[in-house]
Every structure is written in C-alpha cells, then in structure tokens.
C-alpha cells in the first residue's frame, strides 16, 4: 500500500472516505506499531484469566489487557467516573485523533463520534446490583446510569470535545463494524467533515459467564476454523479517524488507507446462531462490494469474523464460498481473533485496523493456533504464520448475535476510483405506529390527543420493589397479538414487545405488511435509552 499524497490523487474526487488516524488498545499492543509487530511475529495476547478466579472453572483463557493502569491515562476523578470500557474507548480515540493530527477544537461542530458498544458497562452494573440498590444514594444511582451503552460514547465526546453527531451503535459483535459503516455514510452524505469511529468493550465476569453457560467457549486459546472449537474472549478498543479524501488532502493529513464500502444485513434467523449457510453474511459482502464498486476478484484478503465457534466458522466459510461460487480463486481468509480474542464491541473496528495496517506492509495476517483443519472449513486460513503478499483491497466481516452482519471494504488509496453514485431519493413517511401511555395503535393515540387525555397516572406496578415514582406514564392494556396478530412475543421482554409491535403496526400502516416488500429491502433501526435489562433492574 502507498500513501495517497505520494500517488498524486486528483483533488476533484469526492466522497471518498479515507482513514487519517488509528488508535488501538489491545492485549497485543497499545499502539498501531505494537499491534502490527505482534501480528507479524505471531505474538498472542491470550493467557490464563487474571481478572477473576478461574481456578475451579473449565474455561480459563482470555485476552485481557493486563497492564491497564487508569492513572496513566486519566485523572483520579476521571478514572473513578469512567468504567473500564469507557476508559478503553477514550484511550483509543485520543490516540487516533493524535495520529490523524486532527485539531478538533477548530471545527468541533463538524466532527462526529460513532462508537460501537456491545456489553458496555453491563458487568459493572450487574455486580453492583448484587450488593446495593440503585435508589440508596446518588453514587449508586450514578453507577446504574453509567451502565448505559451511550455512556462510553459520551465519554469519548467529552474527552475530545467533538460537537457533531454522536451515535452509539449496539449491534452485538457487529457494533463497531456497523459504527464505521455509519460514519462512512455520514461523511458521504456531507453531514460532517470528520468522524471518530470505533468500538470498545472490556472483559467482564458477566460476559464470560454468559458465554460459558452457552457452552460456546474454547478450553484452549481459540483456533478459529481449526480443530479446537469455541471462542476466547478478549477486551480492547479500536478507533479510526475518517475524513473525506479531499478534506484530508487539503489539510495535509496523513492518509493511511481508504474505507471504500460497507454492507449490512440481518439473518432474522436465531438469537445466537448465524444463518447456517451464511446467507445473510454473503449478502452483506455483496452489498459492501457493490457500494465499493469492486468485483470480488479485487479482494486480496478477507478478515473473517472467525470466532472459533462451530456454527460461525462453518457458516462463514459457506458464505465466502457462496460469494466466490464459480470463481477461479478464493482469497486468503484469516481470523485475527486468534491473537486478541473476541473483543465484542471492538471487534469490527480492531479487525478493520489490523487489515489496514497489514495491508500497508503487504502482510496477510495469519490465524494462529491452527493445528488441524475443521471438517467443512476448507479455505486458505493462512495458518500460523504471516504471509507476504500484496493487499490492495480487503473485506472485514462481522457476524453478530441476533443475526446482524456488517462488512467493510478497505484498502489502499488508489489514484482513481469510481464509486457508484449514491441514490438520494426524497424520503417520505408512509407508515406510523404508536405504543404509548395514551394508546396503542394510531386510532387510540389520535383520539387521546384530540381529547387532550393524559397518560400520566398513579404509578403502581404490582410486585415492584423499592421506592416508587408517584406518577408515571405507563403503557396499559398492551395486548401484542391484538395489535399485530402474527407477532410471537414468547421470550420477549416488554421492551422488545413494544418495539416489535410498533414496527409491525408501522409496516401495516404503510401497506407494506404481508410480504409486499422483499424482506431483504426492509431495514430496522430502533432507538433505545437503555437496552433490555429486565434482569438487572430490580
């Protein structure tokens, strides 16, 4: 790979998005240079977990950042107020901004922040719940509020002083892949001039315990696509500074590579399992290539989601094979999770950064710990040793719980590149739906508004524990199947039920229910203040 300035990129190319800074904080390196050296030399960050006692447990490996010292990065007050995930996010974001030589203060309102968070501060809150009650005092309440996903993004925004759009993306393990994609779209549509985008997640006992219970973890350091089945958890953060190519050139920014395309899809298949044939991931790869204006043959390397689980590795292999059906060759595929574990919310961003850094050095990163191939996994997974080969373009895959797939296309900054035009048709609202304290369904809601009826009533939820708000606007008489007959609300908490029913009503109001629109062309965006935490809130 080469820098753009050295290749004299024409300045009239618009809406190409480049990476001008990267920041990383991982178990194999706290700077891009350290990370690259570890990949090059095969240095693994996975070891016996130190953060909590695993002496009696079967799964003892994790990729922790063992030498993390908050006081090396934050004041005492900051360190006390930021949870571990937020600390990682801020460290990586600061590093990326410094790396990009970006002076945010000069144009703070045109700088956005998009962070992907999966578990966030969940671990902290859940452990706190076991010993204290959030209404006991202000500190306890703050701890509860500090568990929300947006808190980490908020911490980055405050630390950097960015005043443009601030978005937290939480699409499980695809969070930061989706975050980079969203940032890419913000820049292409000229909403901002620069975006700090990335993801972070800290290793917590709660996350570990959840996956332990699922039986999805590997007893040894993970070996994606290999004979040892299962995932190894990690922690870390990765951030990039993204700018339009022309802006980056104008300000003389270091240009490290290009974010060329993005594609995202949903499997709509299962809560934890990917679609068994990787159908959704394959579509996401196709969409990403389409948005980049590239053919599959242009891809020199695929950084796989490659968690190490049986279901993921096989379905991802099938997805890649489907993408390359009848092709002469399939590019090398590897999983860098074998180095730094599965970093959940940070995974997509870190893996994009690894691919970018390796591409600049013409190194294909390996899958380490790969002793023997797994049945059905028969691609070139670059076993154990980095390989020297030119890398002009790469794909990074994220395939998350809930069936979310996010694929990024990155690569060198070619002198010319023809990106497909963005379609910007006028956007109109065709359907509305309401689930509220003054009515479920539009008719009821309209009537309430017309009559000036308030939904605020005495709050008295049977079985509630602790002090109660005297008045609250609670949803009453919510009967999901009366509103959307085909909805199956089994195993959904109330929050999910509200979202699903509102979406169903909205589609019906738009006349798009009953399969009138291809499922693949229907997207879903749900805004939440807090995630579903029925079990963590008393």
């Amino acid at each position, binding site marked *: 790979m080469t820098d753009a300035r050295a290749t004299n990129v024409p300045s009239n190319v618009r809406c190409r998005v480049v990476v001008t800074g990267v920041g990383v904080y991982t178990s194999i390196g706290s700077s891009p240079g350290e990370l690259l050296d570890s990949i090059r030399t095969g240095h693994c960050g996975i070891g016996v977990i130190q953060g909590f006692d695993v002496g009696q447990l079967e799964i003892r490996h994790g990729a922790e950042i063992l030498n993390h010292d908050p006081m090396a990065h934050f004041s005492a007050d900051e360190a006390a107020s930021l949870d571990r995930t937020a600390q990682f996010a801020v460290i990586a974001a600061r590093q990326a901004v410094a790396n990009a030589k970006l002076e945010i203060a000069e144009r703070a309102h045109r700088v956005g922040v998009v962070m992907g968070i999966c578990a966030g501060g969940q671990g902290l809150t859940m452990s706190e719940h076991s010993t204290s009650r959030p209404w006991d005092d202000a500190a306890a309440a703050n701890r509860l509020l500090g568990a929300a996903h947006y808190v980490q993004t908020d911490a980055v925004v405050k630390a950097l002083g960015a005043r443009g759009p601030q978005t937290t993306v939480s699409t499980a393990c695809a969070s930061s892949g989706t975050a980079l994609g969203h940032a890419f779209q913000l820049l292409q549509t000229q909403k901002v001039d620069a975006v700090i985008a990335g993801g972070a997640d800290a290793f917590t006992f709660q996350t570990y315990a959840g996956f332990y219970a699922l039986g999805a973890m590997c007893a040894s350091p993970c070996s994606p696509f290999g004979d040892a089945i299962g995932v190894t958890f990690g922690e870390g953060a990765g951030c990039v500074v993204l700018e339009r190519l022309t802006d980056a050139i104008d300000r003389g920014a270091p240009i490290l590579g290009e974010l060329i395309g993005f594609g995202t899809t949903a499997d709509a298949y299962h809560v934890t399992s990917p679609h068994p044939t990787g159908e959704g991931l394959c579509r996401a790869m196709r969409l990403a290539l389409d948005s980049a204006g590239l053919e599959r043959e242009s891809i020199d390397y695929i950084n796989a989601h490659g968690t190490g689980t049986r*279901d993921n590795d096989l379905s991802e292999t099938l997805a890649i094979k489907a993408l390359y059906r009848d092709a002469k060759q399939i590019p090398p595929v590897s999983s860098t999770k074998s180095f730094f574990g599965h970093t959940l919310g940070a995974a997509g961003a870190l893996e994009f950064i690894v691919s970018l850094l390796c591409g600049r050095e013409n190194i294909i990163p390996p899958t380490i710990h790969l002793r023997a191939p797994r049945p059905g996994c028969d691609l070139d997974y670059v076993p154990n040793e980095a390989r020297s080969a030119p890398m002009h373009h790469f794909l990074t895959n994220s395939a998350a719980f809930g069936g979310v797939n996010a694929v990024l296309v990155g690569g060198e900054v070619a002198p010319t590149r023809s990106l497909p035009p963005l379609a910007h048709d006028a956007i109109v609202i065709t359907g509305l739906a309401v689930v509220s304290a003054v009515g479920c369904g539009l008719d009821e809601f309209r009537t309430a508004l017309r009559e000036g009826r308030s939904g605020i009533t005495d709050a008295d939820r049977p079985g509630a524990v602790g002090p109660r708000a005297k008045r609250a606007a609670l949803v009453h008489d919510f009967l999901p199947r009366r509103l959307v007959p085909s909805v199956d609300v089994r195993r959904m908490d109330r929050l999910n039920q509200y979202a699903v029913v509102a979406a169903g009503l909205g589609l019906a109001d738009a006349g798009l229910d009953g399969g009138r629109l291809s499922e693949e062309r229907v997207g879903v965006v749900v805004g939440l203040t807090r995630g579903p935490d029925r079990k963590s809130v008393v």
Partner: protein
Amino acid sequence: MHKPGGDAPVPPRGRPGALGRSQAVARYGSVDDEYARIRSGVALADRGCTGKFQIAGRGALEAVNRLVVSDVSRLPLKKLLATFMLREDASILCEAYVANLGGTYLVLTEGSQPDRVASVIEEVCQSVRDAEVADITAKRTLLSLDGPYSWELLKEMVGTSILGARYLDVITDQHIGDIPLVIYRAGATGEFGYWLDVAADAAPELWQKLLAAGMPFDLIPYGYEAGDLCRLENRFINMQCEGATARSILEVNCRTMVSLEKGDYVGRAAIEKTLERGPLRRLIGFAMPQGNDRVALPGVGDAVTRLGTVVGQIASARFSPTLKRGIAVAFLDTEYAYVGLDFEIGSTAGPQLGRTVSAPFVLNRSLGVRFQEHSYLDPEHP
C-alpha cells in the same frame, strides 16, 4: 429400483393421488427396512393422497379461519401452520396444514373422508365474500423426504440454501433439474422432513430423480405403515386411528391449537360447550413391558381396565423397533389419564400390563444430527 405403487396390499386411504395411483401405498417392501431408513438415513414417500386447496381473494383469511381451529391471522408469511378441521360436534374431520403464501392460502388436508373435506371447504368458501377456492389435489403432488440425513440429500439437489430452512418454513421458487417445486420443511415422522410440492405430471420424474440421487444415501421409498409407526412413536395424531375415533379435538390434547379469540368456525360451539365441563376422555400413551413380542399387541378398541373397572379403550398400538416393546395410545377417562399409572389391557393374546408414559415415546435421531457436524456420506462423522 422401486417404483411408486407396489404390489403390497393397499387399504383405501385418501383421494386419488399423484403418480397415477388412487390409493396410498402401505409398504413397498419390508416395513422394518422402511422404518430403519426413516430412522437412520433417508426415505421417500408419496403423499399424493393429501388434499390440496388454494384459497384466494380478499376473504381468503376469513374463509380459512372458519375452516380450521387455529387462528390463521397469526400465521407469518411463508410459514405453515399445523392444525385441524373439525365437524360441528368438534370431532376431527381432518388434519390440516395451512401455508400463508401472501394473500393466498394453501390448505393441505389429510383424513379418512377426503370428499367430505372437499365439500366442507367448498361450502365454507362459498359462504364468505370474496373467497375463491380451487381444489388442486389432482394437479399437484406432495412427495415427502424424511430421515435424519434428508437435508443432506436435498442439499445436493437444490443447493445449500435448504440447510437454513426452519421447521414449517415454506421455501418457494426451488428447482430440481428443470422441475419447479415448492418445499415445505415439514414431516410426520419426527425426523427431518421436507415435503416437495410439484406439478402432478412432473411427479414421476421427480420421484425417479430422488431415487437416483438417493442411492449413495441408501434411500428407499416407504409406505404409510412405516410412517404411521413413526407417527405413533412421536405421538403425532393419526387420522386413521385416534384422530378418527376422538369425539372432540380436546380429547387429543390439542387445546393449544384451539383459538377462542377469532370469530366463528366449524366446531367452535361444541368446543366451548366441552370446555365448560372439560373433556370426559383424554388420549394418553402406553408402554408395554419390554420384549420382542409383536403378537401380544393390543388391538384397536381393546379395553383398558384398572382394578377391574373399564376406564378406556386402545386407539392405536404398534411394536416399536426402537424401544423393543409395544406402544399404544388409548382414550382414558379423564380422572385416570395421568402418567406413571399401571393398567391392564385386554388383547386377543390375553390381558397384559401397560404403564402410561409421557410423549414422545422415542427421541428422534434427528435431534442429535446437525449438518455442521454430521454427514451420511462421511463415515467418520455419522
């Protein structure tokens, strides 16, 4: 190579079906062999006797909801719903599967009175505004591919996309060779099952293609005797046995299928009446003492007694090769219909003991088979 429609005795069952036959096939060869293939490999059946009715128009949903006991408005697009059609007295007219094809519904029926089923569907649709019904039974044929490795054979024929199909999915726009078909991920054996819905005139060709492609899988065709055995082992309702003799759907433990939230439908009034006092009988499973004694099986209608009192009647009984014992279902007076009780069952070979057990009788092999891990063709990963 087997051909559909063998020489085995074939009791009447169903309406004229596919592949040029008017009666279902009891067996193609040995029932034990057919059963073994269903349970451990792949087997192919002709479900040509299944009734097929397409209901379209603005009133289609209302019409289908009047026909079946379940609420079809809850059925997502491209999904099947397993349900029943009743008579007015709430006894079961037929087993039914409803497919939501987006504005149009396909109703697949199976029962001992196919002509009566057809006329009920016709009558109901005529009574609903804008509901048009087409009886496509003779135009379409259902073939059934069953067994723990049926997905593997089908994958070779239609591609890997079939592996993602979930139970009761409707997969449209499929092809085997140049034969277009719709696949329903369904079955009545408890093992992985796929119903292939194909034009009747293309069915013989598809049958032959499946037999040819199935050779590496040791595929054989199976008749309804082996199928019924698998049904019983899973406690699925058999419309030729317990389904035909149940006085009410509530006797066969299908309360969860019954909707009281939708409008009127055939049998609703009788169901509501029965619910007021509860059913007088319930279907329950019996396991006989272990032993390879097929002769001592109870017969349909044999009395079930407890301390000398007749408390029920056998509705169906067979010998389970998997369990190596006789199994049966019987309608018992409700107060006796509990698991873990011993009863005396009369049979021609003399009375014998039977213990009530919970469903299903056996755990299907398919529960332990995943395409990610297993393959019929790879002996190292069976």
